[in-house]
């Protein structure tokens, strides 16, 4: 039975492994620096080690937030968090498992009227901010160190390549260990108080917590082994623009931050030094990576960080707990009343009032509930607005690694940094949607416009000079010069040729039937046919062919004759339909 309830947590673990392993080994695998098999084995192994050996710290904090003490409740909390994560990633919205699980636990607390430890909540929410900030600081420092080392050591690029490979493997292993240690709380944290399943091997009794962490670690490892390849490969292509050196810095800083927020020993050491303890909370690895990229961008002298896009990403992250909380609240109602599965244990609810409801009835303190519901409604409205406005922008430019309904994984990149951020296509590439061909066309057009403007400016200057010229002869000479320039410009055959080439590229060549039927068509008549295919009037065509309006009409008449059209036939229709 316990395994059935654990399924939602294991699913969450599996999706975390499939997604977040890309943050650790994505660049290394995608760029071919490390083979996927090696990366997956190392990541899987170290995730299990991290989860089992060091997963307790962050899990304890989550338990303090709200002690989910029944398997039914834990199942629902984990399932709702997983659903929100899956749904938001499907919608290409920025999401974090940590925020989702915290929101879901608070939803459980509100439903069961269990007390929420607001001190812990504040600590956790602060870490959502301090995580990326610390990531930025670590990344900036590591980047400076790395840059100094590379510049001073003058190591050959081939040797540097070898060292970076080793570095990426070690940093990846460390990152995977820290990911397991920190994020196992998201996966198994809610089950810790609800489960007392111990395993005995000989005289050795493995406590329930360790069994859960091991199972969660295995689920994450399974996610890495079974589904992260595609993620890593896509991610690597997206981050290809991140140099391996920068990728190493990003992975290291992420691993350091996750380690910092999950190491009980380090926290105890800090306390012994007379400093306040480090809060042991689950933080989002993706958020830390975003912070790290900003840190590197700052060092490199980013001129324009896309704060608007960053704002929308953070907005998405803040919405996650509300969605998860709301869904959990509703799901718990269904689970407890429709399926009659207990979502809270009476015996363990020490802090709860005596008449605690196991099944739903209206909570003891309705004001808080109403406040929560009001917040939920506001969040839903905000979410709706977000989908319609910012969501679209994020969908097309969202830089983080997330699932995309149609294209699989959308890679993580330094896209939100300005043009002088991390060098490469992610930073300087044109907006997605503008293909290379279109971009070239736009560039050509821009150059053409600039050419035209320069010509007009020179004409204006010459006219002004002619106007100021006191001598009639010189004035006439200037005007004559301008006329010549104008004639040359109008007869610029290269320009016209280019235009017709572009025209042919845009609307395609004349249909073979037409050219065959009118094989005796002159060049001018073929041009006329092309322009008619474009839907231009005789008035518009005249300057393009360099003839008068009337001549265009005569040319149209000749074309009709050559194409053997009857009186009732429409020339344009014929040209467009053959």
């Amino acid at each position, binding site marked *: 039975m316990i395994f059935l309830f654990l399924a939602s947590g294991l699913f969450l673990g599996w999706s975390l492994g499939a997604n977040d392993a890309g943050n650790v080994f994505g660049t290394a695998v995608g*760029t*071919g*620096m490390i083979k996927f098999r090696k990366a997956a084995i190392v990541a899987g192994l170290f995730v299990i080690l991290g989860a089992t050996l060091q997963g307790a710290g962050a899990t304890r904090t989550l338990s303090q937030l709200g002690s989910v003490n029944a398997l039914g409740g834990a199942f629902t909390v984990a399932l709702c968090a997983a659903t929100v994560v899956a749904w938001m990633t499907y919608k290409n919205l920025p999401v974090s498992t940590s925020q989702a699980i915290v929101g879901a636990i608070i939803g459980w607390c509100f439903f069961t009227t269990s007390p929420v430890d607001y001190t812990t909540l504040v600590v956790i929410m602060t870490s959502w901010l301090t995580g990326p900030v610390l990531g930025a600081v670590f990344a900036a420092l590591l*980047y400076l160190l*790395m*840059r100094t080392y*590379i*510049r001073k050591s*003058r*190591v*050959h*690029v*081939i*040797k540097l*390549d*070898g060292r970076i490979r080793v570095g990426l493997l070690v940093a990846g292993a460390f990152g995977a260990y820290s990911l397991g240690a920190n994020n196992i709380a998201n996966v198994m944290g809610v089950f810790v108080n609800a489960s007392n399943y111990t395993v005995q091997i000989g005289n050795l009794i493995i406590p329930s917590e360790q069994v859960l962490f091991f199972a969660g670690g295995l689920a994450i490892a399974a996610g890495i082994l079974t589904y992260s390849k595609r993620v890593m490969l896509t991610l690597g292509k997206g981050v*290809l623009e991140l*140099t*391996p*050196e*920068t990728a190493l810095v990003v992975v290291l800083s992420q691993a350091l931050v996750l380690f910092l927020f999950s190491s009980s020993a380090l926290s105890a050491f800090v306390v012994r030094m007379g400093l306040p303890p480090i809060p042991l909370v689950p933080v989002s690895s993706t958020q830390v990576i975003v912070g790290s990229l900003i840190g590197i961008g700052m060092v490199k002298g980013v001129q324009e960080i896309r704060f608007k896009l960053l704002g929308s990403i953070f907005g998405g992250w803040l919405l996650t707990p509300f969605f998860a909380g709301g869904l959990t609240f509703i799901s718990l109602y269904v689970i407890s009343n429709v399926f009659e599965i207990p979502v809270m244990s009476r015996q363990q609810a020490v802090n709860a009032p005596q008449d605690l409801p196991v099944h739903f009835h209206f909570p003891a303190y309705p004001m808080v509930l109403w406040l929560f519901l009001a917040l939920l409604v506001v969040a839903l409205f905000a979410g709706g607005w977000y989908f319609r406005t910012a969501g679209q922008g994020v969908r097309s430019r969202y830089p983080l690694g997330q699932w995309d309904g149609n294209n699989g994984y959308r890679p993580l990149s330094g896209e939100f940094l300005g043009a002088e951020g991390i*060098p*490469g296509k992610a930073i300087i590439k044109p907006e997605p949607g503008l293909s290379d061909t279109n971009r070239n066309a736009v560039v050509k057009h821009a150059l053409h416009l600039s050419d035209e403007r320069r010509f007009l400016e020179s004409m204006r200057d010459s006219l002004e000079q002619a106007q100021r010229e006191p001598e009639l002869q010189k004035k006439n000479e200037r005007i004559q010069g301008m006329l010549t320039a104008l004639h040359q410009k109008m007869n610029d055959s290269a320009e016209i040729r280019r235009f017709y080439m572009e025209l042919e590229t845009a609307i395609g060549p004349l249909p073979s039937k037409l050219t065959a039927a009118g094989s005796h068509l002159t060049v001018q008549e073929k041009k006329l046919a092309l322009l008619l295919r474009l839907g231009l009037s005789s008035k518009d065509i005249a300057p393009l062919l360099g003839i008068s309006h009337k001549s265009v009409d005569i040319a149209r008449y000749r074309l009709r004759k050559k194409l053997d059209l009857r009186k009732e036939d429409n020339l344009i229709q014929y040209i467009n339909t053959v």
Partner: protein
Amino acid sequence: MFSSRSNKSIELIDGFFNGVDQSLLIFKEGVKNYLHQNTASFANNLQELAKLEAESDLIRRKIEETLYTQSLMPQLRGDIWRLLEELDNLIDLSKKNLFQFDVENPLIPEELVLDFIKLTQLSLSAAEAVIPAAKSYFNQPAAVSEKIHRVYFYEKETDVFADVVRRKIFKEMPALGLSEKFHLRYFTLHIETISDTAEKVADLLTIMAIKRIV
């Protein structure tokens, strides 16, 4: 194991650069020998250059094979491959141009000998300046831009001086027939192509260095 493999690759790349440098020196000597009519030495230069070109081709292919089979520097190998190809062009051009002297045997008047030597020196200075820049790409990319400006300087100087020589050929040497003038013009162009190729390499290196600078 990885260290020995990388050392071998580094040796190959250094060997290739030496080959390019040597071919430029031989070309310079070859042109001088042709102009001073040292026929035997010129023939020797031709043979050496042909041999060097074949050897450099082999080394280049070996490097490129190593880069791809051993998955070295997946992000940079495309650029490095292009760089090696462009540098190899310098050797090919040197060989081709020297053989053209041999095959077409242009008549170079005495008063143009020094000009042709100077033109060759200028053009080769541009090509020679590109080699330290290419070497520093591999271990000190930030220094590439400091070295590359010499290439642009000599390339420009070559262009200017080649114009001077051509002007001299067509305007100050009425004794030469039009065909001879045309012939000489082609040879100034042949020599110029070496500095033009060096400029191409310099452009490529500039971009490559920017991509590599951390």
